[in-house]
């Protein structure tokens, strides 16, 4: 299970952007978190992905409470979560060819030997052709780059996937293709998913259940009022 218990988080302790958010994703489940622009849902997604330390509350991953975030998280916990962000341009190193972009997590965790096989396999999963893999980010479209970012998120076979507005920049066909790539991976591995977004139709179609931001943080809003 991925549990967020009364998480308060933000960038200034006096004005947290997330207050007392509680959300649970059980193993193999796909949960959509729906909220308007600027409500703090991306911050909560970063907390769930162990990329942002909350000011209060706790994150429990597979039954063990998380104490360390970002680079301080132990490797087996860090790599249990795969993340896809909204803007592929901002989350891809412009110097890396797509093949190295996808392989980087393998190299960083000492699994260099599995690079050729795993990259080829994932390129096919996300629909990237071999000629695209030799290019750098500025030589491909947003949709193609996001395909590579999805492959990168899957390369270490995470048990949990956090997709923060994964398809907000993309056209309908690329959206459908990437959602299918994520769902095929989940069918194979039983990974759980937290998909954050603002498109109700998409999240309802994609996820097992969709929760609205207001219900995730509602108790806090009431006590403040």
């Amino acid at each position, binding site marked *: 299970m991925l549990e967020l218990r009364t998480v308060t988080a933000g960038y200034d302790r006096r004005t947290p952007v997330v207050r007392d958010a509680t959300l649970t994703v059980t193993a193999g489940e796909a949960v959509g978190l729906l*909220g*308007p*622009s*600027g409500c703090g849902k991306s911050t909560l997604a970063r907390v769930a992905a162990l990329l942002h330390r909350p000011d209060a509350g706790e994150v429990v991953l597979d039954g063990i409470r998380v104490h360390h975030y970002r680079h301080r998280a132990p490797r087996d916990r860090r790599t249990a979560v795969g993340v896809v962000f*909204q803007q592929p341009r901002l989350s891809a190193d412009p110097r890396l060819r797509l093949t190295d972009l996808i392989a980087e997590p393998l190299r960083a965790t000492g699994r260099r030997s599995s690079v050729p096989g795993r990259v080829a396999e994932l390129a096919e999963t996300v*629909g*990237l*052709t071999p000629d*695209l893999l030799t290019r750098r980010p500025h030589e*491909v*479209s*947003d*949709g*193609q780059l996001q395909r590579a970012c999805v492959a990168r998120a899957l390369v270490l076979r995470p048990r949990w996937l956090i997709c923060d*507005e994964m398809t*907000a*920049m*993309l*056209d*309908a*066909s*690329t*959206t*459908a*293709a990437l*959602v*299918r790539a994520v769902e095929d991976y989940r069918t194979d591995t039983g990974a759980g998913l937290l998909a954050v977004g*603002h*498109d*109700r*139709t*998409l999240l*309802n*179609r*994609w996820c097992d259940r969709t929760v609205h931001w207001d219900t995730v943080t509602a108790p806090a809003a009431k006590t403040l009022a």
Partner: protein
Amino acid sequence: MTPGRPPVLSVRGLSVRFLLPGGHRVAAVTDAHFDVAPGECLALIGESGCGKSVLASALLGLLPANAQTAGSALLGDLDLLTAGERTLARTVRGRRIGLIPQSPAAHLTPVRTIRSQTEEVVARLTGVRGRAALRAAAERAAERAGFPTDHLDRHPHELSGGLAQRAATALALIGDAPLLLADEPTTGLDRDLVDRTVDELRRHVDADRALLMITHDLAAAERVADRVAVMYAGRIVELSEADAFFGSPGPRHPYSRGLLEALPERSFLPIPGLPPELGSLPDGCAFAPRCAHATDICTTLPPLTGPVACHRPLPAPARTPEAIRA
């Protein structure tokens, strides 16, 4: 839409080529033809990387130096493709064409507040003078785009994506340009904000302006557009009335049909394969390798005759689409 009135923008045979080192040529836009009339919204839709934004840049004279253009794009009697930078800068951008940009965060000046940028644009483009008058005019401009006036003293990085988009929209509307050019105006906005943004754009269209909206958001296009142009691999492959396109009989080009069917409220199935490289397009129909209906004839290039550039379009409607203008 009043037929018989001259269009605000008339694009004829517009092509854009990028010259790359080593003699490579990238065909970003090829032979585009369309008009936009006052009081009309034309939505230009297609996958990312199909050439939509290049077309917009060509209209504003914002192409990089290695681009070559052909054809014409008449704004009244001014050809935007041959007009000099001086003309474009002093009389066109902001005054005759208002640009609502793709990435407002990159469009706004990061080191100045929204108020300061708005006041500058008001002072430049309108006759308003004096500090108090500018301040009031800037606040009215912000309100018109739904930008909360209590956020005017913030810098762009302190705004959410939706608010930054509204700030950029406010700036685009200040000059009261007869043509609005919106490049992906709804990217990154939530559905309610998308609806508000496009409804606001529609209000300006109904006030007799012309709107060319470039978007991959089909729901936004359906909400705002009178006509739809579908672009694939740099060519316009279908030009249709929005009602017919989104309703009955639906799109007639297999690509347009695939794009619409990929929506989560429809079958949610992706079009197989990837779009071709604009640097090495096939000789025939660029969509043929991904198309379930393709036959031998598709190795030749289909012209845009009538509403659709396809050798094997999906069944024609039973009634004659007299409303469809080629």
